[in-house]
């Protein structure tokens, strides 16, 4: 028994490293790394080195124009007292609370409809996906037009059902819900992932449930949701990250050139604040520290999601 137990013990770091090094005796290992090389080189040059450089800059007062001077953790300390950091993070969090569930629900709904469509599915898939390839700048301009409080299509639609529409683009209370609604317009990518997941659910599961008398809701709750839970989980993480890195649409609509009177703190998202500090106020060191804080926040949120998600996500073939 003891020998069996020892043979199943996970290898230590040294053993792992030895096995990894031993792999290079095989020609296939070299071939594999040769194929991986373009990505690895790209990752090192365009991601790893800039991240390391940014970590260093976050400890300096670098302004691009002047030489960097080491300031220790001053930038991080300054962040604690900076009200705009709290404001921007709150804006992102609020946007995420509206946007993430909105996108997931609408995308799943559309995917379920398309999954049932017998003909013309390809056409509608294309139509629903088209907004995804619309440039964010165009989306922002459309947002300002559609959500205009006086003549916007959205409020005109609400008027038809006798609901007075808010001033979406000027009222601080409605700016983030409006942007989240606009974001729902671009659910095509998420929808395609859900559709692929729905198509991979074995039909015999539904047939068996139907024979057992399960209602449509039960089939959705007990078969569809568990079977597509990896896709839901993946989209949840991607959408959350997107919500915390929102930039182009909000910047164009509220902070772009010639829009001084559009600028509102209700739309000051964290990415925009980083940009302002780096390129308007020349505080590249502080902006780097802000970027690292965002990185840590996203990592923590993702880690929590993974931890919690593991209890709900069903992986086919998983032997847990």
């Amino acid at each position: 028994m003891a020998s069996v137990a020892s043979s199943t013990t996970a290898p230590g770091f040294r053993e792992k490293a030895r096995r990894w090094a031993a792999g290079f005796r095989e020609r296939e290992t070299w071939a594999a790394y040769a194929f991986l090389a373009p990505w690895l080189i790209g990752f090192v040059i365009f991601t790893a080195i800039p991240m390391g450089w940014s970590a260093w800059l976050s400890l300096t007062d670098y302004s691009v124009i002047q030489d960097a001077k080491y300031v220790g953790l001053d930038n991080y300390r300054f962040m604690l007292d900076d009200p705009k950091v709290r404001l921007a993070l709150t804006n992102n969090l609020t946007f995420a609370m509206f946007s993430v569930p909105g996108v997931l629900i609408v995308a799943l709904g559309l995917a379920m409809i398309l999954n049932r469509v017998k003909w013309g599915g390809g056409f509608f898939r294309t139509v629903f996906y088209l907004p995804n390839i619309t440039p964010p700048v165009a989306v922002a301009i459309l947002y300002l037009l559609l959500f205009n409080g006086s003549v916007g299509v959205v409020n005109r639609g609400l008027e038809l059902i006798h609901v007075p529409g808010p001033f979406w683009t000027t009222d601080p209370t409605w700016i983030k819900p409006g942007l989240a609604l606009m974001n729902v317009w671009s659910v095509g990518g998420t929808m395609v992932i859900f559709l692929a997941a729905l198509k991979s659910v074995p039909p015999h599961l539904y047939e068996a449930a139907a024979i057992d008398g399960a209602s449509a809701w039960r089939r959705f709750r007990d078969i569809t949701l568990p079977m597509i839970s990896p896709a839901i989980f993946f989209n949840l993480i991607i959408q959350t990250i997107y919500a915390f890195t929102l930039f182009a649409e909000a910047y164009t609509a509220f902070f772009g050139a010639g829009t001084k009177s559009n600028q509102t703190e209700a739309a000051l998202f964290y990415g925009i604040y980083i940009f302002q500090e780096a390129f308007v106020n020349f505080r590249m060191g502080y902006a780097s520290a802000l970027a690292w804080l965002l990185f840590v926040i996203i990592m923590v949120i993702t880690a929590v999601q993974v931890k919690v998600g593991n209890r709900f996500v069903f992986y086919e073939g998983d032997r847990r």
Partner: protein
Amino acid sequence: MSSRWKRSGVLLTVAGLCVVIWASFAAAQADVKAGPNAGATLKIMGFGPGDEIANIRASEAEAALGGAAVSNPRGGFSDQTFLAALAAKDVPDLVYMDRQKVASYAARGALVPLGNCIKQQSIDTSQYRLAALNEVRYKGQTYAIPEFTNPRTIIVNDKVAADAGVTVAAFNTNDWAALRATNKKVLKTDGGKVTRIGFDPKIPEFFPMWAKANGVNLLSADGLKAHLNDPKSVAALTYAYSLIQDHGGWGPFKSFRDTWDFFGAGNQVAKNQIGAWPMESFYYNVLAQNSPQVNITALPFKNRKGGPITLITGNGWAIPKGAKNPGLACRWIKAVTAPASWVKAAKARFDAQKRLNRPFTGVYTANKAADTKIYEDIYQKMGRADFDNAVSLLVSINRYGFTLPASPGGAEFNTAMQDAINRVLAGTQSPKAALDQAQKEAQAAIDRNKR
């Protein structure tokens, strides 16, 4: 034909093509201008090809470069592009930037003082307007040469005034109580939505003018002390905001204003969507080009004592530190802002407008000598009293111009001021609280950036 002959034919054809291509390149090389600076290239950032006023002056300046080529890519000045160029040590020779940014860059050593340039090229700085020069002077040194002034005046829509039963003179910023009463008379709302604006105070953009009208400079003359929360600043913001509140608040006001075709034939004046508002001088040209039939009156923006004031600002030419051809840049600066260049460009616009039977609304520069020559030698009344009177006012108003002085924290000062006003407009803070916060932010930035 034998295969040998075929091969020879192909070879000859290829050789012929090579000769043609080589000859084309040689011709292109030969196209390089002759002159003492032939072979050099002046790299400009932020100017790009523009309208006839820009292009004609650019041609004049290029002619002064002694045969050097000019690289002038499309697009305006962008902090991001400029900072990237500085970081990459690929510095342009010349930048055309907002004068409000000059001190911020100068304080960080990104621009070179133009003292030597001014001396070597014998540039007569007395010909430039003092207010515009003060905007680009930091710690006693001049860091840029100013271009336009864009003086602000009030544009009154005569038709709307008549329709509302008010006189044009009632849009007088000298008497705040009377102006507010006029505003209320002229504005129109329908079911909570604005359908006509009475008087647009144009805040946050023109807030420095409202503060100045109430007797306070938002920045000290040396640019080191902010006065954003001075009681007079707070009173000015409270008043300007009240003009918007009369329309039902910022939401209805702004969302209505966002629907305008500002640069088109169906602009807010042509469509009678506004009574009056303060505006930069370029907008008279927009009206002349797109809706010359409108009836307007130009009025000076007056302070509370009754004297005219105008906020002037615009772009300027500066030489970055590390520029490879500062001598060429300096020649360009002198030529592009010289009275002769301005006059030639103004003449081209005048002729074009005359051909199209449209009013010529003048060109307003930071060069006093150029303005005088344009008005005296080029300008002719075109029989459109509205625009002719506007030109007379714009020519005379420049002398009452003021500007926000150069400040090492200029960019942050502007951000703090705009954020404060936008918080007031959004209804999240009172004018006093907003300006108190802005004062702290702006002063901290100035203190941090001064060397």
